[in-house]
């Protein structure tokens, strides 16, 4: 009797082990998508169309849709702002991909930009910032946050790439002049997002906005870009990884080491400023932050060499895996920018597994994400044409910096083992 029970238990354990050995390496195949679902050279990929349809419903004020935005504001007012930015940048790229869609998307872009600027003007610069923005004075006065100036300027710039808008021309010029003036006064050529806090994320977006403005208005800030990159290489690199720091004071003192929630987007923006430096940063981020597990890809927030502590940018860190929602979401942008198809496929497989997609007719949203997360994903699926337009004009100009390659034509990056 004991022998039989012992045999049954042993056979059961062996069968379970065999079941795990068979199933676990295979189950990612359920979630691997054809790349054309999320990334196409021309036109808008179907997944992007469905995500965009959900966002358009939010901005069309369909019943209950704006509640998505309010849910996020409860946690972080920045997410409300960034959902606007990424969505407008996405719409601009979609209009460049399918010019016939511009007549429908331009009014949405204008509405979002106008409402954002109005809220900033009426409710003050702290409306889209976290509450601690008011806990100390900004060192540069009057108060301006490059978090707001950079993203709004890029919204206006990309909108103007699709079709000229006289009102935004003057507003873009004012924001660009302000950012440039303040960068020139800073010892590290970076500007505060929060009091005495300069964030790589915001400053790299600011630089991209200035570059877009150069393309649109014929100005040339090539010298500033060159000095910015030189300064960053000297003062803003974490020595163990070679990655850019994510936050520092106006004097360049380290506040936060490299973070996934900053570096992937910074590499995307810097690809418009110095493509070689940007590609190097992307490859380092990939080396130190990418995780591949059972056919799925995700990203850590911090390299093992310089660990940090969780904050609202990283999002919750999933235990055991150390998966950061913030870093993983922005890794889509980095991988798409640098044409890293293998990483992108693994990320999309992970998204289908753990993003909890909800499909409703022609719409798609990820329940595991939020409006800003979905806007970032949408941007990763359509980015490219705007950067290409700007880069193509720069390659014809006399700028001392090398022109950026067409981002959606896949930079020839080599992946080190």
């Amino acid at each position, binding site marked *: 009797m004991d022998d*039989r029970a012992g*045999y*049954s*238990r042993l*056979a*059961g*354990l062996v*069968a*379970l082990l*065999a*079941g*795990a050995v*068979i*199933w*676990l390496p295979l*189950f990612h195949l359920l979630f691997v998508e054809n790349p054309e679902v999320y990334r196409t050279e021309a036109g808008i990929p179907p997944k992007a169309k469905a995500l965009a349809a959900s966002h358009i419903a939010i901005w069309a004020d369909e019943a209950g849709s704006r*509640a998505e935005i*309010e*849910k*996020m*504001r*409860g*946690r*972080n007012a920045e*997410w409300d702002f960034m959902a606007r930015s990424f969505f407008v940048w996405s719409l601009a790229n979609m209009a460049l991909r399918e010019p016939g869609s511009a007549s429908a998307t331009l009014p949405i872009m204008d509405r979002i930009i106008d409402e954002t600027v109005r809220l900033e003007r009426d409710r003050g610069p702290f409306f889209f910032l976290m509450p601690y923005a008011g806990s100390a004075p900004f060192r540069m006065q009057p108060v301006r946050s490059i978090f707001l100036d950079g993203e709004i300027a890029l919204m206006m710039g990309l909108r103007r790439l699709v079709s000229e808008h006289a009102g935004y021309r003057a507003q873009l010029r004012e924001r660009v002049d302000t950012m440039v003036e303040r960068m020139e006064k800073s010892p590290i050529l970076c500007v505060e997002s929060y009091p005495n806090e300069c964030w790589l994320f915001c400053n790299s977006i600011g630089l991209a906005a200035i570059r877009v403005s150069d393309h649109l208005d014929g100005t040339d800030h090539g010298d500033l870009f060159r000095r910015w990159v030189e300064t960053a290489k000297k003062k803003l690199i974490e020595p163990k990884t070679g990655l850019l720091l994510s936050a520092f004071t106006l004097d360049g003192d380290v506040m936060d080491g490299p973070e996934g929630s900053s570096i992937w987007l910074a590499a995307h923006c810097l690809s418009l400023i110095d493509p070689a430096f940007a590609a190097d940063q992307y490859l380092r981020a990939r080396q130190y932050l990418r995780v591949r597990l059972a056919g799925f890809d995700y990203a850590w927030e911090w390299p093992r060499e310089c660990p940090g502590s969780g904050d*609202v940018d990283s*999002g*919750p860190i*999933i235990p055991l895996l150390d998966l950061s*929602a913030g870093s993983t979401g922005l890794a889509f942008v980095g991988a798409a920018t640098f044409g890293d198809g293998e990483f992108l496929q693994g990320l999309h497989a992970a998204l289908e*597994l*753990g993003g*909890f997609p*909800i499909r409703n007719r022609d719409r798609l949203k990820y*329940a*595991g*994400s*939020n409006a800003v*997360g979905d806007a970032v994903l949408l941007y990763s699926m359509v980015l490219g044409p705007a950067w290409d337009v700007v880069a193509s004009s720069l390659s014809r100009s006399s700028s001392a910096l090398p022109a950026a390659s067409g981002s959606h034509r896949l930079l020839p990056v080599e992946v080190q083992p």
Partner: protein
Amino acid sequence: MNIWKTLTSSLSGAPVCSPRGFFDRAVMLLILFALCHFAGLREYTCVISGTSPTGDPADIAANILGLAYFATYALALLLAPVFLIASILLRLFARPS
């Protein structure tokens, strides 16, 4: 009634390490996930991105519902198929007791 005991014991009363025992456990995990899914808890999984399903970050109950969905989803996806495969393997290869 002890709900935990009901959930963890076999539907048929078969021993754990038997084809029917494994099959029953796979079915129970799938039923548990289906209950959470059809109760609409998928919407609550935004907790994994740090967003409160109700907009109130202090709403613990909503966060627990999101995590419950996440847990049953993971069990149904990772463990239930392993139980099913093990059930088939046992039936095919194990010596009848």
